[in-house]
């Protein structure tokens, strides 16, 4: 439906068009969104736990986690609130390297990411491995600020950015695809920006 009198718009340059998913606009800033107050997690209190169901597999403290192999990823990110930001540079530990350090293959097809503030989000395991995702420790070469999820946030850049859990403190393999915080509150179970899977019920 064409909107009467709407012409101008903030069209992206044509050379970037193909990088902007449907319904998104290009944002130069880095907006902050969260469901509650920003937790201040001190690195001395920080830990990351890998679990299979209720059973802990391995736990790392900040120093141990930072000693894992570090990788860099520069990616476009897409927030469900409709902004897209190009070329965000991250550094951290690939989920592949976390699993390798724990000495395991992924034990199930589904994963829940958990955060210090009680937030959770579900991601199929295949979307976390083979270099697709990391636990990011640096943004633009510097420690991630608390409002952007520091000390560490999940980075799953090919899904809407609520899947990239801020203040992440663990991954839990689950037997079923268990909805997380926003997925229980009307947001899509998978969240592919290219298929515009914003809300539950979207195709």
């Amino acid at each position, binding site marked *: 439906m064409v909107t*009467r009198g709407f012409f101008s718009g903030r069209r992206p340059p044509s050379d970037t068009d193909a990088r902007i998913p449907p319904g998104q606009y290009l944002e130069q800033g880095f*907006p902050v969104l969260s469901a509650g*107050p920003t937790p201040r997690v001190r690195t001395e209190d920080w830990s990351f736990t890998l679990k299979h169901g209720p059973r802990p597999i391995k736990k790392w403290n900040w120093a141990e986690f930072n000693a894992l192999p570090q990788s860099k990823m520069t990616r476009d990110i897409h927030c469900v609130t409709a902004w897209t930001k190009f070329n965000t540079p991250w550094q951290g530990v690939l989920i592949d390297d976390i699993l390798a350090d724990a000495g395991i293959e992924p034990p199930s097809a589904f994963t829940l990411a958990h955060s210090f503030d009680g937030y959770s989000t579900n991601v199929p395991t295949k979307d976390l491995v083979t270099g697709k995702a990391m636990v990011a420790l640096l943004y633009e070469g510097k420690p991630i600020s608390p409002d952007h999820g520091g000390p560490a946030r999940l980075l799953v850049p090919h899904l809407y950015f609520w899947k990239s859990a801020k203040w992440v403190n663990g991954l839990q393999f689950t037997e079923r695809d268990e909805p997380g915080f926003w997925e229980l509150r009307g947001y899509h179970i998978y969240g592919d920006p290219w298929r515009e899977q914003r809300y539950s019920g979207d195709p």
Partner: protein
Amino acid sequence: MSAEPQLQSPWQAATITRIEKRTPRVTSFWFQPSRPFTHLAGQHVDVRLTAPDGYQARRSYSIASAPEAGAGIELVIERLDDGEVSPFFHDVAEVGDEIELRGPLGGHFIWEASDGGPILLVGGGSGVVPLMAMVRHRTLQKSAAPIALVFSARVWDEVIFRDELIGLDDRRDGFDLVLTLTREQARRPSDYSRRVDARMMMQAMERLSKAPRLAFVCGSNAFVSAAAEALIEAGVPAGLIRTERYGV
């Protein structure tokens, strides 16, 4: 906490039925959806504009009207000078225009009268909009749940819903309005002239009969960060604080 599975809410046409300027930069638009829905206080809708060449711009706007108000929904749109969608509404949109929207959306930043109180609401600028839906919902439900609204605006003339809020405050029925102006002197004896802080939050909570069961904070990211930290410093557990940020 309600976490009902959300029914699919596809895009639909809605007709603008009324437009009313609220402050120099803020205007209310009433929409009558072609397929009416009932929202919860605090929810939002997504609005989509389409240009003749197919280009689309979409934004989320909180609903200001109470669920039981009927006759469509009120959205409050602040003009952003470098915006893409808000200038369209302020400069082009007219009563009778059809706009596409989908909703209601959001299952976290909501309050129902049946949830009870006391509730502490903290809004900065147009962040008051979803909180206004809660205040209006309380009134129309004749709820006795104590609610205090701390509302920060730059100046008196930018206090959105000012007359309506002061009118509700004057009823002394358990709703308390605490205004704070950051660039002007307070006009009412009980109001403040500074940015929100922990002392202001403690004094607002003294107006409630007991500690709030939930606090809702909405505004710019900078405002929400400051207000949430003030609430925590005032003793509100972080787990009881729900935030909604404009993002920038």
